[in-house]
């Protein structure tokens, strides 16, 4: 499909400006010569009509959650309620400047304050900061809090324990936090090997980062022992909340002994993924860690009946972003929690766990599970047995697209020997039994195709707007802007095909 720049025609425009452009003022009187750009920055010139058509067409090349099943394990692709979008676009919120006087933004502050209280109750934690903009951002914030806690106590520690099954952001965040990453192997049941953990945990280790249920979708029943081991050596327990969708109303990380928790509001709490964000990765801590939270936080003065921004004090780790939070995301989260209530939250987790186990039970005959036990809200199977037909998990995923569904997560998690060629399915509570049955049928069909017609899979997808991409060429050519492409124009030979509707 043509790029927007290829639709540019001189003289076209898609904007409107007021009549009064202060023509009586000369720009040279305002700005010094060294500052003014010699030429205009050449962007593009396109009418509003053509811009709307361009992006409308582009959208049709995407598959969205409202199109159908999107079972990405670890991403919690659940339905995004439309009323929440409406409420987040109210003008009193969207035009609120972050530095507006506190008395003018009492509504925003009330929502942030109330959300804090709700999340504390849902997770068994004492206080949340709304600052982090994403899960990984939250991880970094949490790790910096852990670091400051130990530095403040005159106890300098250098290591962080992270399970081999952990999401890549965990070790990456620990490294950004200045810690040496020590990997803890999983046992044959898919959970943290307690013996190895006990050997590795020492007084030079800040603690353990744990996702529970873990990245393979299994609840780690060793959690009580894990708590003893880590706390026993004065360490802290960090909870990666990516998989909270399996725990709402069932168990709370705070009760399980976690000291720090991050939540992905764009996962568990229904805010839209937007093609890769924005979300929010709020961080909750037990009371000993409250002094280290980023600044500022929202507080309430009961005498004056006013909300206000409170400076977190000198033990705070500082700021991790400008201003306060991804407020629009907080609002949608708040609205979702109010719409669900305690029963709705429990129902969410119960249904997602049943949905995932249902899929597992039906496809495990065709795709060996990574671990043969009941799963949490997501199940992990492998495509290992199809290797002998020359079919990889990647091929299976690509073939699923031909049947009109988005494939599950593939190749994550990856740790030998159990989690290889993985396919991780997370239906979420938003999916109906009929959709699951359809998915199961597709997986069975593909299993058959792998044996009888493997080439169909290795050359899939066939029915999507584009087919398999040459990723090696992308790295080698390094065409990262349209101008890079123009420089290589003579070497390139594309078949420009428009999409048929």
């Amino acid at each position, binding site marked *: 499909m043509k790029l927007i720049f290829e639709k540019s025609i001189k003289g076209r425009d898609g904007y409107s400006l007021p009549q009064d452009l202060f023509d009586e003022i000369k720009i040279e009187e305002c700005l010094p010569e060294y500052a003014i750009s010699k030429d205009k920055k050449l962007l593009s010139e396109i009418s509003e009509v053509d811009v709307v058509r361009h992006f409308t067409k582009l959208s*049709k090349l995407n598959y*969205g959650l409202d199109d159908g099943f999107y079972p990405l394990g670890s991403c919690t692709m659940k339905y995004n309620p439309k009323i929440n979008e409406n409420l987040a676009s109210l003008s009193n919120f969207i035009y609120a*400047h972050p530095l507006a006087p506190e008395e*003018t933004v009492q509504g925003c502050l009330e929502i942030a304050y109330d959300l804090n209280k709700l999340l504390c109750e849902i997770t068994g934690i004492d206080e949340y900061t709304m600052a982090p903009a994403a899960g990984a951002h939250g991880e970094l914030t949490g790790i910096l809090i852990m670091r400051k806690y130990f530095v403040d106590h005159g106890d300098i520690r250098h290591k962080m324990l992270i399970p081999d099954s952990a999401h890549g952001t965990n070790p990456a965040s620990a*490294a950004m936090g200045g810690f040496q990453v020590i990997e803890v192997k999983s046992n044959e049941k898919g959970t943290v090997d307690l013996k190895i953990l006990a050997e590795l945990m020492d007084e030079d280790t800040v603690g353990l980062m744990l996702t529970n249920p873990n990245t393979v979708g299994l609840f780690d029943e060793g959690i009580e022992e894990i708590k003893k081991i880590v706390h026993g050596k004065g360490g802290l327990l960090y909870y990666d909340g990516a998989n909270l969708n399996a725990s709402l109303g069932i168990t709370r990380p705070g009760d399980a002994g976690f000291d720090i928790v991050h939540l992905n509001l764009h996962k568990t709490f229904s805010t839209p993924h937007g093609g890769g964000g924005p979300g929010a990765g709020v961080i909750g801590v037990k009371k000993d860690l409250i002094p280290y939270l980023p600044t500022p936080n929202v507080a309430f003065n009961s005498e004056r009946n006013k909300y206000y921004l409170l400076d977190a004090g000198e033990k705070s780790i500082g700021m991790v972003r*400008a201003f306060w939070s991804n407020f629009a995301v907080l609002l949608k989260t708040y609205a979702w929690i109010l719409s669900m209530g305690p029963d709705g939250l429990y129902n969410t987790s119960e249904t997602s766990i049943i949905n995932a186990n249902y899929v597992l039970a039906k496809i495990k005959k065709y795709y060996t599970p990574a671990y043969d036990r009941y799963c949490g809200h997501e199940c992990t199977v492998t495509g290992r047995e199809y290797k002998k037909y020359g079919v990889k998990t990647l091929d299976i995923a690509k073939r699923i697209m031909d049947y009109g569904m988005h494939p599950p997560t593939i190749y994550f998690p990856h740790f030998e020997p159990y989690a290889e060629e993985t396919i991780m399915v997370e239906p979420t509570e938003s999916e109906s039994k009929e959709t699951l049955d359809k998915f199961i049928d597709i997986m069975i069909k593909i299993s058959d195709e792998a044996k009888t017609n493997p080439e169909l899979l290795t050359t899939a997808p066939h029915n999507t707007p584009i087919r398999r991409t040459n990723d090696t060429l992308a790295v080698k050519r390094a065409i990262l802007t349209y101008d890079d492409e123009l420089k290589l124009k003579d070497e390139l030979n594309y078949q420009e095909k428009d999409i048929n509707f």
Partner: protein
Amino acid sequence: MRYIPNTEEQKKEMLKEIGVSSFEDLIESIPQSIRVKGKLNIPEAISETELEEKIYHIAQKNSNFFLMKPLIGAGAYRHYIPEAVKFLLQREEFWTCYTPYQPELSQGTLQSIFEYQTYISRLIKMEVIIPSIYDGASATAEAALMSLRLTHKNKIIVSNLLHPHYRETLKTYLAPHEPEIIDLPYKNGLVDIEKLKTLLDEDVVSVIIQSPNFFGGIEKLAEISEIVHSKSILLINVITESMSLGILKAPGETGADIVTGNAQSFGMDLNYGGPYNAYLATKKQYIRQLPGRIVGETVDVDGKRVFVMTMRAREQDIRREKATSNICTNHNLNVLATNIYLSLMGTEGIYQLSLLNTKSAHYLENLLLKSGKFEKVFNYPFYNEFLLKSKEDISTINKKLLENNFIPPLKIGEFYKEENLKNVLLFAVTEVLSRDNLNKVARILSE
């Protein structure tokens, strides 16, 4: 519950097919000691109408911001966003989809990111653009970390006129790595270039300069660049008001090695502070040290031009603790918002708008000086933000403005404690303030 299709009946059926007698069998591995006893202590669910009423009610506790014109910027700027931007953004294919790991199902997202990369590259004249870090502050921190990785030295010089939140964030991110952060003071509202010369030594990795700076002043970037590069030090430029790129020289033209920019002005509402979006740009030679996602062009098996995430070997899912950053989910929808916004505004729109912002800001400053109630603090060239010292108590001034439906300017003393900045305000003007609005401001403050 309307968001959860499966009924109790169906769940019972499914449990049977799974082969268990109850749901409890599935969660057996969760110890009883940590189970929630009874129900979570949160309010019972409310209906959609009740929700709407409740939130509208809370919204009323905010001021009626649509009609309240801001005289404040300080890193967040109200600009008019064409309706087409919001209309297109809300298409579910853009709004609800995931990160484009499967390019066959996400060419819409991928192509739009590629277009964004091109637009920003043309605006700032840099070769490689990372389209999304969460915001300008974290992007600047990432740029600093990147510069440390590139040279393995340990001093970073930071302009005192870098946005205070950005400076705080920088300190927070750098704390574990313990480089020395050296303050670069200002003189007359701009970076003190003479002082800068004395601070550059062989342990300095990079110099971070914001322009237009926090006071709105336009730094002498070409001069600074020459001085910094003569010592083989990296120059990091920070932009908090990207609209300034319409009229001001691109940082790529004045020698920036790394650029971070807050893109909020291009299509994002103020939203009480977020989510915004920031780009991080550099030269091709540093590409492997860049954090974050980037999209590149290639072909598919049919020879069609397609777009994919590329250079992934830098990222956390592949490199884990050796990744250039931990960033995963970023602010992608806002990348699309900027893409649509810039497509509508185009070459002329951004240029004209940037001009308008400059002129109207200077118009207001002029009026306020003429009123006799204000005086200049420093004499520096500014883009659309400026400092003025008030003869009257600024709390009274701001109160008057609030009462007359303006979000008041920033009391600069909240961030800068210098004696000569007491009773000083940082004004910002964008195109949302008409000549009438500005005349009214001057009138109110002259009384």
